[in-house]
């Protein structure tokens, strides 16, 4: 069996269960084991994966939410299984119920990007890449036909699509044309490489002599993304040869955990000063200098900007009544953002 089929299927099972149970842990599974059995039954037979599309499954087996509980009490009908089989497998858009009624006419598009970067100790960008996902949350009636276009699709390096995306329009005009499933889903994921601008810098300095090591870490804005950078954190693992640590910062809080992870939570960068962490490491007796250098891992979040520069041009919707609400959002998070020392 192809290994990726196994891995991908397990991930999908986990996703579906999470969707149904609102989480995935031992207790939840124990509490809802009947539902879990039912779901697994529909998802796989004799080792062959069957359907894993949440929408179809939801038509066969109702999720155990409060609404259905209330409904069952009121109507006296206590089955969470619909008696009609979904006809979706035969429909041309299997991911969507054919006669969907929705009270709210709204669709949201989210760009979520993760910035992976490696910086050398001199501050040189060794590698920088953005992995992004386009999430769509749609609550639309009928069979809406959506077209999403980007202002600068050429920067995308490689794109992967949800099965609902038609391939030809993308190939021809680089637009995403699709009939969305109901609810939230990942429309596409992409990669953008060769980025030059990274939002913040971290400058670590370690100098050791005769069993001591002085640490100083400076953090500041390198290329202003135009929006506030939030939730900035810096963490690093102290080498095992460090005996004791004494560090403090002029901004934010510093914690040294039991496993010698140093966690510095900065938050936002203040206007008047640049955050600085400094302190002293005492090395193991007999060791003069530090030979293993920690890697500083940086976390942050910027709301309102996609750092890759990808911009949504417009979203057109066919087959729909005029009044509806469209929303766009972009977020960039730090993925694997590492600074070497």
């Amino acid at each position, binding site marked *: *069996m*192809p*290994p*990726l*089929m196994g*891995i*991908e*299927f397990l*991930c999908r099972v986990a996703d579906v269960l999470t969707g149904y149970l609102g989480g995935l842990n031992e207790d939840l599974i124990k509490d809802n*084991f*009947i539902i879990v*059995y*039912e779901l*697994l*039954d529909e998802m*796989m*037979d*004799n080792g*062959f*994966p*069957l*359907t*894993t*599309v949440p929408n179809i499954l939801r038509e*066969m087996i109702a999720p155990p939410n409060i609404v259905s509980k209330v409904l069952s009490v009121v109507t*006296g009908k*206590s*089955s*969470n*299984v619909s*008696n009609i*089989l979904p006809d979706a*497998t*035969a429909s041309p858009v*299997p991911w969507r119920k054919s006669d969907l009624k929705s009270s709210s006419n709204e669709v949201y598009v989210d760009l979520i990007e993760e910035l*992976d970067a*490696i910086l*050398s100790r001199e501050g040189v960008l*060794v*590698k920088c*890449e953005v*992995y992004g996902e386009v999430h769509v949350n749609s609550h639309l009636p009928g069979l809406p036909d959506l077209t999403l276009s980007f202002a600068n699709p050429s920067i995308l*390096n*490689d*794109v*992967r*699509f949800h*099965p609902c995306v038609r*391939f030809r329009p993308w190939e021809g005009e680089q637009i995403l044309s699709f009939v969305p499933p109901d609810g939230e889903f990942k429309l596409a*994921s992409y*990669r953008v490489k060769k980025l030059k601008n990274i939002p913040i810098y971290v400058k670590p300095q370690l100098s050791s002599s005769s069993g001591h090591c002085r640490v100083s870490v400076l953090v500041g804005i390198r290329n202003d993304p135009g929006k506030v950078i939030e939730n900035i954190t810096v963490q690093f*693992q102290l*080498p095992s040869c460090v005996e004791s640590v004494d560090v403090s910062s002029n901004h934010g809080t510093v914690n040294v955990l039991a496993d010698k992870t140093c966690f510095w939570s900065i938050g936002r960068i203040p206007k008047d000063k640049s955050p600085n962490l400094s302190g002293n490491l005492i090395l193991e007796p007999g060791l003069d200098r530090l*030979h*293993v*250098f920690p*890697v500083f*891992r940086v976390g942050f979040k910027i709301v309102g900007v996609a750092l890759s520069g990808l911009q949504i041009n417009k979203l057109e919707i066919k087959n729909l009544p005029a009044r509806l609400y469209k929303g766009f959002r972009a977020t960039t998070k730090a993925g*694997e953002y*590492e600074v070497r020392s």
Partner: protein
Amino acid sequence: MAPPVPNLPKTSSPSQPSGKSEVADLKLQLRQLAGSIAPGSDDSRREIFKKVISFMTVGIDVSAAFSEMVMCSATSDVVLKKMCYLYVCNYARSNPDLALLTINFLQKDCRDDDPMIRGLALRSLCSLRVANLVEYLVSPLTTGLKDSSPYVRMVAAIGVLKLYHISPSTCLDSDFLAMLKALMLNDPDAQVVANCLSSLQEIWSLEAGNLEAVSREREALLSKQVVYYLLNRIKEFNEWAQCLILELASKYIPSDSNEIFDIMNLLEDRLQHANSAVVLATIKVFLYLTMSMTDVHQQVYERIKAPLLTLVSSGSPEQSYAVLSHLHLLVMRAPILFSSDYKHFYCQYSEPVYVQKLKLEMLTAIANESNTYEIVTELCEYVANVDISISRESIRAVGKIALQQYDVNAIVDRLLQFLEMEKDYVTAETLVLVKDLLRKYPQWSHDCIAVVGNISSKNVQEPKGKAALIWMLGEYSNDMLDAPYILESLLENWNEEQAPEVRLHLLTAAMKCFFKRPPEAQKALGVALAAGLADSHQDVHDRALFYYRLLQHDVSVAERVVNPPKQAVSVFTDAQSSEIKDHVFDEFNTLSVLYQKPAYMFTDKEHRGPFELAEELGSLSLGTGSVEHVIPAQSYEASDNDLLLGTSEKEESRGLGNNDSAYSAPGYDTSLISLEDKQVQPESNFLSLAVPTMPSHTSSVLDDLLGLGTPIIPPPPTLKLNPKAVLDPSNFQRKWGQLTTSLTEEFSINPQGAVALKVPQALHRHMQGHSIQCIASGGQPPSLKFFFFAQKEGETSPFFLVECLINTSSAKAQINIKAEDPTLSEPFSTLFRSALLALSPS
């Protein structure tokens, strides 16, 4: 999916319900509810069912409530039904008698109005897995395959496969395969088609060795018509079924290049599918299709690079690893094509070690003139990594690059810098590398030795590093001023030196040093030889003795032996042969790629079964001689008796019957009438295969032996074998796995007979004459391999399984016997020997 069958002893710990009383209680409650149709009774039933199943899940045996559960299952509530099915399927296997109770209600549910219930009931019916209930499966499955609801047809298609696993003969005798095939090619529902395809593939691949017609069917699956039909519809299938079809397409052999481009154009967009399994399966199709077109094959590499790299950066570490392993395989095959993508293989601190290791290997492979500097710089960063194993791997990677490249100047400098880091493991790894580098590039000795000479031998603790250092001390003692003295100090600690490897190197180094700087090293050599001679380790002792005697014999000869002029090593051998790598590539998109070895190296021989001997033997012709006769024969036995034919006719009609069933199994009705039709115009060679075996069936084993008069005739065996023993391949495989070898023998066989064994089939017929059936065979002369089985006379007598290796050129045979009754293995072996010895060149 089913919870573990609760064979556990009933627990009596205070935290767990002790089971017995609880179960009795539940039984009582169920009984009270059984007939109730009062409103709300479904709810209370559901509560109790829930309890029963939760007990079952934690391993308490609730099978006692079986009949009550069945009684309560007459309900219209789907959830109740589902729970009941789950319960029934779990206990049916361990309580076949109870399972009979459920047949009735499951069959009834199979005729329910609601397709969902029909489907679920059919599915549970097929999942009972009780061998003596298969007769009840046939008719619901037949109706299920013709059901109006795709849901039921889909379940039925898999049901056929389940039936096959319980009882292959029942499945093959009914014309399920033909129905599946028809559904696969005509059903409007994609999932039904997919399930038919997967069932057929599995059944056919298991049966392919037995029936020629089946292997032909299997090939027909790869015909242009079928493959195109499925590929054209591919977008209708769900992602998992797409993988299945793509896998099939990867085996398709297109007739010309236009076809190749058509398929690739059609599948191009699959490369951008969100499901990584689909992407990988598509890549496999592309790679295999273009195998013969070098240019296009390269373009394919370029095309698939981006999707693969995206897959690596998205998803879980497990997924990245699986994708990276495939990428690794491709990188190893065509490093040049990836040389500009080296940055993708840079390791991130937070990645798991297994991912980093793969990346290091890839970086090593793609290093060339244009990117070496960047890659080596990056690798040097990893040397300071917190994880020691990664640090070591990085040093090795730098070394490997150095050994690949011509321009090693910069790299040597970096390696030497590692030595200054004063980390034990870094120093040790680096020393090993410097040693290898010197063996390849002796011209660098001057620079290296200068640095190595500064290393205090006390800082090197690891045996490998130490051995490398000592080797350099011996080899370059002319360049290192104090080499003899360092050796001397090392020799002082001889007794504390744990690793024999280091002691061996010390001996050799002392010798080399002696020949280069005799006056200074004489003392060291004396100490070394004395210590070596007294050493308790055999190798060390022997080497010391050897040197000692060599020196005694002639010093100049000794010098030529120990210190000859050396040529630089040009290429270090690769650990894995390219043949194996190609083999792994042939198994793209399977676990083989993750393990980096072909399937036959990690699957158990027992699990591979006799049919995969091909892997070992190179080529395999499956037991065409006997197996066909064995399985269908069963069903014809009865009709033979009815016809009251003479023995010879009986044999003949049997041969034809098999022939007939083999051809008609997929399409036509197998009745005796068609059998007789065929008799008139025999069209296959099976007849000629079957006929010669006839006389031996009727004559006794003894007659046969005497008639042939082989040189050595063992005493007449007392054991009688069942001439019509039947054992299907899967049972053979199972038995072979279960039993242990009770007897192994080696003996010579009649040389003329051996020479006549040009093809394995010759022996099949011969042994069949002795009531020993061949189930699989393979190999090319002179070495042939066979698997035989035989049964003691009687319906339920024990079986004998034999693995037999014959070398036709040396006329030797080796047999391994596994017997269900080990006491009989001795007489059986005599019988087997005599049968084999009777092999004549005729």
